């Protein structure tokens, strides 16, 4: 088993920088998700890993092998495409067999028609058949092997595409938004199945998606890319609760993180609306900063309690949770809080409230978007 490493990858079309010095090293057997908004360069990075595109700078490694100059066919990598890219003229079984036939049969044995007359190919073909069937059984598509892609549903096609990737036990898997063409129910179901497949096969996997839920729920580690840069490469928990950059904080999490603009005061604190939101901020006094806290970090209190003063604008009941939208007093900012429905019943529209958050949940970002360290942690702020 080998890891997959992309080191210092840069690529530009003219002045359009698609990728800027991106380095991602997936450990052997690791499941790494590349997530980011569309146009962030994640698919290009995947195609560079596959050898379908070439980087201007940087190298691609599979274990100890430098694959940078290798063609896709030499890389021992399998890929699942967003559109599945099944050969429409071949049956599911023939589709799955293609990589094996290409590897195991000679150019003469593959020739249409004549190939069947070549010696010694019968044994190889039987072996290919056996492995196709094995793979199909593991994906529960063995009853579909004689159908052509045009006669299958989206979910079935997706499995055939997975089968074509799985059948030859590659050194690494690349997946380009493989679930994006499925309906919502099937997507959640297949998500679990791919994770299960990955656990069984234990093959290093690079998985591109724009869906943060997919990335967080499936991957061992998540790489967040925005504007061609790798902003953070960390575990899902790390990405969510400890974002290294304001863009990461903004992109990950639904509803979006609450962000308020402020300034570092002489005592290294940040005050908004007269209330101290953070202390011990590691930045020079006078620096503009952005303070963020997740909707679920917000506690609402009665107006007489200490905290930011605000009024309730809208309440959205979502079943398992309730979203409360709050207008801050004296400013245009609207915050959103995620409460347990039972906690939300205490509040009514238009009501004045105070907002509180634990200091460990308050994130401070500098003017360049980078996270600033805050000390000491663990205090209830917004009470000063």
């Amino acid at each position, binding site marked *: 088993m080998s890891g997959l490493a992309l080191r210092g990858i840069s690529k530009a079309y003219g002045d359009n920088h698609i990728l800027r010095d991106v380095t991602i090293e997936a450990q052997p057997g690791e499941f790494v998700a590349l997530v980011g908004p569309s146009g962030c360069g994640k698919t290009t990075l995947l*195609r560079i890993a*596959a*050898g*379908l595109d070439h980087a201007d700078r940087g190298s691609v490694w599979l274990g100890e092998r430098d694959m940078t100059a290798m*063609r*896709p*066919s*030499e890389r021992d*990598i*399998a*890929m699942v*495409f*967003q*559109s599945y*890219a*099944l*050969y*429409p*003229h*071949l049956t599911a079984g023939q589709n799955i067999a*293609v*990589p094996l036939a*290409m*590897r195991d049969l000679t*150019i003469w044995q*593959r*020739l*249409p028609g004549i190939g069947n007359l070549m010696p010694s190919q019968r044994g190889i073909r039987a072996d290919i058949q056996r492995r196709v069937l094995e793979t199909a059984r593991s994906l529960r598509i063995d009853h579909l092997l004689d159908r*052509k*892609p*045009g*006669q299958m549903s989206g979910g079935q096609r997706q499995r055939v595409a997975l089968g*074509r990737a799985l059948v030859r036990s590659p050194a690494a898997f690349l997946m380009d938004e493989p679930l994006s063409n499925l309906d919502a129910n099937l997507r959640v179901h297949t998500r679990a199945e791919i994770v299960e497949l990955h656990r069984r096969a234990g093959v290093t996997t690079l998985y591109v998606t724009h869906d943060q839920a997919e990335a967080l729920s499936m991957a061992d580690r998540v790489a967040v890319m925005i504007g061609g840069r790798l902003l953070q490469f960390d575990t899902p928990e790390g990405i969510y609760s400890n974002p290294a950059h304001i863009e990461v904080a903004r992109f990950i999490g639904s509803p979006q993180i609450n962000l308020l603009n402020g300034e570092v005061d002489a005592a290294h604190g940040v005050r908004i609306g007269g209330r101290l939101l953070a202390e011990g901020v590691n930045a020079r006094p006078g620096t503009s900063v952005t303070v963020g806290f997740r909707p679920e970090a917000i506690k609402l209190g009665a107006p007489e309690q200490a905290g930011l003063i605000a009024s309730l604008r809208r309440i959205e009941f979502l079943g398992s949770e309730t979203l409360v939208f709050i207008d801050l007093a004296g400013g245009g900012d609207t915050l959103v809080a995620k409460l347990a429905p039972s906690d939300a019943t205490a509040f009514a529209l238009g009501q004045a409230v105070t907002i509180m958050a634990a200091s460990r949940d308050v994130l401070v970002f500098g003017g360049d978007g980078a996270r600033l360290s805050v000390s000491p942690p663990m205090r209830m702020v917004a009470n000063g």
Partner: protein
Amino acid sequence: MDSIALPAGGRAGTSNPAAAARRSEAFAGWRLAGPAVALLALLILLPTIAVVALSLTDFELGYDEIRFVGLDNYLELLDDRTFLISLGNTLTYTLIVTPLSVALGLGAALLIEADVRGRALFRTVYFLPVVSLLVAMATVWQYLLHPTIGPVNALLRLVGIAGPNWLGGSDTVLLSLAFIGVWQAVGFNMVLFLAGLTAIPRELYAAAEVDRAATAWDRFWLVTWPMLGPTTLFVVTISVINAVKVFETVSTITQGGPNRASEVLLWTIYQEGFVYLRVGYASAMTVVFLGILMVLMVLQYRALDQRVHYT
């Protein structure tokens, strides 16, 4: 003031609004399609029936007499050496022009599509013959292939070969006409193949590369050729039909000669029908010609149903 409700009645029989709407839609439909229907009947349906009917008579233009002769014309065709030679020549011509123009059209399309350099230029150059007046270009080729003053033979003389009388010798005339036919048809086939090639999803080639189809040869057989199936079938059919309809070059250059060596179907029909005015007999030939076209179309539909439908 105005009421939304439509006034009831007025005319008798409009009590059912749905039926009235249907009637008015049908009326509009027939009014719009009317001219086309009339012309279709007058210029295609009727003449086609007439040609079949005439083929059963001995009608000759200029003679008032017209006699029903049953299948006599068709029986005569079986013994007509000119007609049989004509059929044979048309078959030979088609068998040369179709494979060559399809293969070269495909080859040109593949080469042009393979890289961006010179793509537009080559496409334009290969397409030129399609929009050039064929009669004029046939005249030019006649000069190029002239046995004594033609540049082709002059070129051959440079390397010490005495070129034949291309369009004047009965051994070479059909070959030369076929060459002109290929020259004229390649560009047309090429643009159809180019359209077919651009319709192939790029991701299939990416998938083929990842699936270890390492060489262009492998990818051609795995992706390009099967995906071009419908286009190829179509191009072959249209090439065959156009080859069977060869007329302009023969009429311009050889007039069927020398010694009937370039006698082709439409030229023979033209001579019989419009020069000798033996309308009945020429009609029988026309029916045979039409029959050949029908068979070709049926074969195409069969092939389309069986092999190249993927969805």
